[in-house]
């Protein structure tokens, strides 16, 4: 049981923040192993270090019956002194030369009275726990089920860190009782709370409120690959240099300029001109005015929103203005329209600041932080004009049947309910390779419709609905028209130079397809890095102009 949990701490640490140092210490062992061997019955299995595959395998070896035997051989079991264990841990922390930003100690145990009521040992442990907490260590209890229940109040309530104070209202999770919860808890992703920007929210001349800008959600991607030398598997680093093709001498940024090519014409600018073009305002969020909430269009979405929260340390008084604005915007059901310049040399975007009141759950844990969500608004360029087809609307009978279907398939949506199968699979693959597993653990694809369940729930409703809307001859699954098979191997098409030149002259190069353009590039010995049509065309035009 313990090893499963520890393994899961390790594997999740490895994925979420591998730079964190982790140690594994056993207490109540027969043998002792610690830095100066000053503590009996404390066994430092892994010293504080970045975890890797080896450690996961080590812990895995402690699993099952064979694992228990191994543990008995290496460590044995002996007298318990949590005080000594805590003291040893505090030494581990202090032996590290690095400055640690967070220190956390998780105690895994199934004994609510580790010292069997020995008050001296209990007191000693309490003192040591107090010392640790004083140096900024957060002590968590990860207790397991125990017949008759695990009673935290007997002893451990004095050991673990108290709920954090008001000034830093953290998510305080109740100690958990089940292994499931335990695993879930340690697998939570660790994201540092860091402002993307700190800017002034300018309400008008001379009225600046400092705010921090935080991401609400960021599309998670697979971590990027590291390049390794094939022979030794050691990492290599890349260096990019810019040099003059003719002279071979290295070019400094000041010896180059920037250009764009449009309609056969190269337009050249200095680098600082390119920056100036992008500069509109200094970084700020400038208030334009307010609008009623219903004016915020659902489909006017261009990028994930950000959260604004006041920065009292930058401008004192900010929090009060912010709180007042938040209160009043909520009451009046309005949002603020603002012009947002996140940083220097950055063109502005407009945002709708939508008030968000703080929400806490029944155990007083914050589920929604207070602040303004900044929703990015589209410009005219971002909105596509569509030709909208018109159809007869459905009749009441048809709509009612669909209502029945919908009602049968209701569920409670939670934004954290869906894992990304692409990323999960990637991590499982990595884990399998790192730990020499035969096959990666299988993942559950949470965004796959549970077709059988749906069918069962809907029963005859589907056919009834189809009968109401589709004539017997109609099959919605038939493909409308056979698709052109474009990606079948086509004979390579070479294009005569004269024709190419004519295209360039008439500005009709764009009529050629990308494969033809690529072929033409090859034909004239142009090495192209890009695959964009425009890049190919530009390269050809440049070549032909020589």
């Amino acid at each position: 049981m313990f090893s499963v949990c520890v393994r899961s701490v390790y594997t999740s640490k490895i994925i979420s923040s591998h730079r964190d140092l982790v140690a594994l210490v056993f207490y109540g062992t027969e043998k002792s192993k610690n830095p100066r061997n000053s503590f009996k019955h404390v066994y430092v299995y892994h010293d504080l270090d970045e975890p890797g595959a080896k450690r996961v395998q080590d812990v895995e070896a402690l699993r099952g019956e064979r694992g228990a035997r191994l543990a008995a051989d290496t460590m044995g079991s002996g007298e318990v002194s949590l005080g000594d264990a805590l003291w040893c841990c505090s030494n581990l922390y202090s032996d590290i030369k690095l400055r640690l930003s967070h220190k956390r100690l998780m105690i895994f145990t199934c004994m609510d009275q580790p010292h069997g009521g020995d008050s001296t040992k209990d007191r000693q442990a309490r003192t040591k726990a107090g010392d640790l907490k004083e140096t900024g260590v957060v002590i968590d209890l990860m207790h397991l089920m125990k017949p008759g229940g695990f009673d935290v109040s007997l002893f451990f309530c004095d050991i673990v860190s108290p709920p954090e104070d008001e000034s830093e209202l953290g998510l305080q999770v109740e100690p958990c009782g089940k292994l499931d919860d335990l695993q879930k808890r340690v697998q939570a992703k660790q994201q540092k709370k860091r402002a993307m920007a700190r800017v002034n929210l300018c309400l008008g001349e001379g009225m600046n409120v400092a705010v921090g800008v935080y991401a609400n959600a960021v599309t998670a991607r697979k971590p990027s690959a590291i390049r390794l030398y094939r022979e030794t598997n050691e990492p290599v680093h890349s260096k990019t240099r810019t040099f003059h093709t003719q002279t071979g001498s290295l070019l400094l940024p000041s010896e180059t300029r920037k250009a764009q090519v449009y309609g056969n014409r190269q337009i050249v600018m200095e680098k600082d001109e390119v920056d100036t073009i992008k500069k509109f305002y200094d970084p700020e969020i400038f208030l334009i005015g307010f609008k009623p909430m219903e004016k915020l269009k659902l489909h006017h979405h261009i990028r994930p929103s950000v959260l604004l929260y006041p920065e009292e340390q930058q401008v004192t008084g900010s929090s009060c203005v912010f709180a007042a604005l938040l209160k009043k915007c909520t009451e009046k059901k309005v949002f603020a329209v603002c012009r947002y310049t996140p940083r220097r040399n950055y063109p502005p975007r407009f945002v709708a600041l939508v008030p968000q009141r703080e929400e806490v759950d029944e155990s007083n844990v914050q589920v929604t932080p207070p602040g303004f969500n900044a929703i990015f608004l589209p410009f005219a360029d971002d909105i596509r004009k569509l030709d909208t087809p018109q159809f007869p609307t459905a009749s009441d009978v048809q709509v009612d049947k669909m209502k029945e279907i919908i009602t049968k398939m209701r569920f409670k949506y939670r934004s954290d309910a869906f894992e990304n199968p692409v990323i999960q699979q990637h991590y499982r693959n990595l884990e399998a390779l790192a730990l020499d597993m035969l096959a990666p653990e299988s993942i559950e694809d949470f965004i796959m419709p549970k077709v059988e369940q749906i069918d069962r729930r809907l029963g005859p409703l589907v056919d009834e609905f189809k009968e109401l809307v589709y004539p017997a001859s109609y099959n919605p699954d038939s493909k409308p028209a056979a698709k052109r098979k474009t990606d079948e191997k086509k004979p390579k098409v070479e294009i005569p130079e004269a024709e190419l030149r004519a295209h360039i002259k008439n500005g009709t190069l764009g009529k050629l397809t990308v494969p033809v353009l690529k072929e033409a590039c090859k034909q004239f010995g142009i090495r192209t890095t890009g695959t964009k049509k425009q890049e190919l065309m530009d390269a050809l035009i440049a070549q032909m102009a020589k």
Partner: protein
Amino acid sequence: GKREKMARAAKSALVLCMDVGFSMSNSPPGEEPPFDQAKKVIQKFVQRQVFSESKDEMALVLFGTDATKNPLDQDGQYQHITVRRQLMAPDFELLEEIENHVRPESQQTDWLDALVVSMDLLQKGKYDRLNIVLLTDLSTQVSSDNLDVIIGNLGKLGITLQFFFPFPMEEEEHNEEGGGGDGDGDRRGSSRPGVGKGLSREQKQGLEMVRDIMLSLDEDEGLDQVYTFSEAIEQLFMFKHIERRPMAWPCQLTIGSSLSIRIVGYKAVTDEKLKKMWITVDAQTSKRDDVKRETVYCLDDDNETEVQKDDTIQGFRYGSDIVPFSKVDQEQMKYKHDGKCFAVLGFTKHDSIHRHLFMGSQTIKMFAPKDDEHAGVALSALIQALDKLNMVAIVRYAYDRRCNPQVGAAFPCIKQTYECLVYVQLPFMEDLRQFSFPSLENKKFTPSESQLAAVDSLIDSMMLVEEDENGQKEDMYKVHEIPNPAFQRLFQCLHHRAVNPGTPLPTMEQWLKDALERPSAISERCQAPLEEMKRKFPLKAVEKKKELKTGAQIFEPDAKKSKVDEEEEEFNLAKISEGNVTSVRARGLCQQLTHRIEQLLSNRSTHYYMKCITCIQTFREQSVKLGNADLYNSYLQSLKKSIPNSGLQVFWDLLVQGMISLFIGEEKKEVETEPAVDDAGDVDDLVSVCLNSSALKYLMFVS
């Protein structure tokens, strides 16, 4: 990222038909003549088409010209109409032609004749859309004899018309939720000046005819295509009208295994990026080919041994280990799926979807296929049912097999003229940043009643949406009608540089500046409440350490400011080399400079190394200018000596490469120049934050 395939649609053709007759140059004192405005409209439009690399073809017809040049010129008919340019893709020649050859002339021509000439041009060639844009002040007497024939032909050929006048068509006409398109119908807000002025008889008559034509072409929305010149300059109506429609994405919406509805998706809103990026060219020759970029791979040993790219494989970090994981294996083991799909996972309450957790950069509208009425009815049933139940569908969406599947919500959307589903991507668990923040319900921050009252009146004074006398809601600030200023400004500068090379870039256009500001009515109204706010809420900026420093400040003899701030401090060194320094005395400068260099070097990062090099270059230049090489040379000598012990070899290599000659009075050869590699690439990226979209995202969300 997924690359959108370009729609292989046929191109469209458009005739710009502009009145240059003498009345167009008339204007009351202090007002811009209609001619100038109309010319700007045309320039703006052509400019946009050139920079969007549009393949749509365009012709230019001028009327009211002194000369006559058009195919219909016969028997004294169709006089004073000049076809300046046949249908062709727009280019810089056209821009130059407009700039230099479109000027006020002295004739007056029947605009219906000009319309006929324009129609005639459109009959040659195959196009999927035909448009005529007519810009005139309607001051000429028009013969309406053949009006019916003309209207008939316009309809038959499927030509759409847009009219642009110096004055608005109606006093004020509102058109809430006009349907069609995506502008939400309620476009065009404020009235423009020039309304009340009496129109001439000809103009009134002309307007009547325009109304006739437009309403017979499109009963419902015909009049929506009549604009004023100033509207045209500030918004993109003309452009939007001819814009290519987005690619269709045909798919089936499935509910369980046996219920499917054929649908077609179109991107409705998307974070539009510029297609082109800046390329690097040699400063002297302006040639791209003269600049080459090369990436090499080195081992992390003392010699930084170079290895071939082919001798490298990829791996991923797994904790303290790095696991080799080849591309082939990765491809084989990765998550695979069945491709294109729009499958309902279930339905949920509308309000359980949080607007602030919308993901991705687009919304997609789903319709039934045009020719499939059954699908239309089935989809309508779903949309109506969702709307009535106030629910949404949660779906699995995959664009195609190569793209990663998403989870998203399909919202019902019911407009006057159409119904659709609106799809938006929702977050995965991994995407969420569930940060918690201290509560603001804190005694320290709780605003008093009088403070709340001040905020209340500020909000009231700054409402951008107000009811007018008729109970109509008027929105005076529609962001979705403002063209992206970044594009406008870039196009303006590129256009200027292309047509007037060698001259400095122009300032931002006034209309654009104004469009991004608070409306003046609001500014005035909020004055007093804002003052009250200032009185009620004391705000005090905490002394900032990290300020942007200019060269002048760096060289201020202030020894106390020593420690270089870790990350955010930025030195505008460009300014140093641009002369601020020349005013500083040499010896003092030398001290300050070397001090600065020392500080910068202590950071051990390429970013700071480059700043140092600029410092040293400046030092060198100034020393040469002042004819005093000793200070510089001896400093550099000592710097060089210190390199091996300070672990700054990378910096030294960079420096050696970066300078034409290191010591004053020496040739470069004499300095040992190992062909060491540098990180100049990174630095280049820092200096020119390009128009790259991913770079943009990076800056926005990661750092």
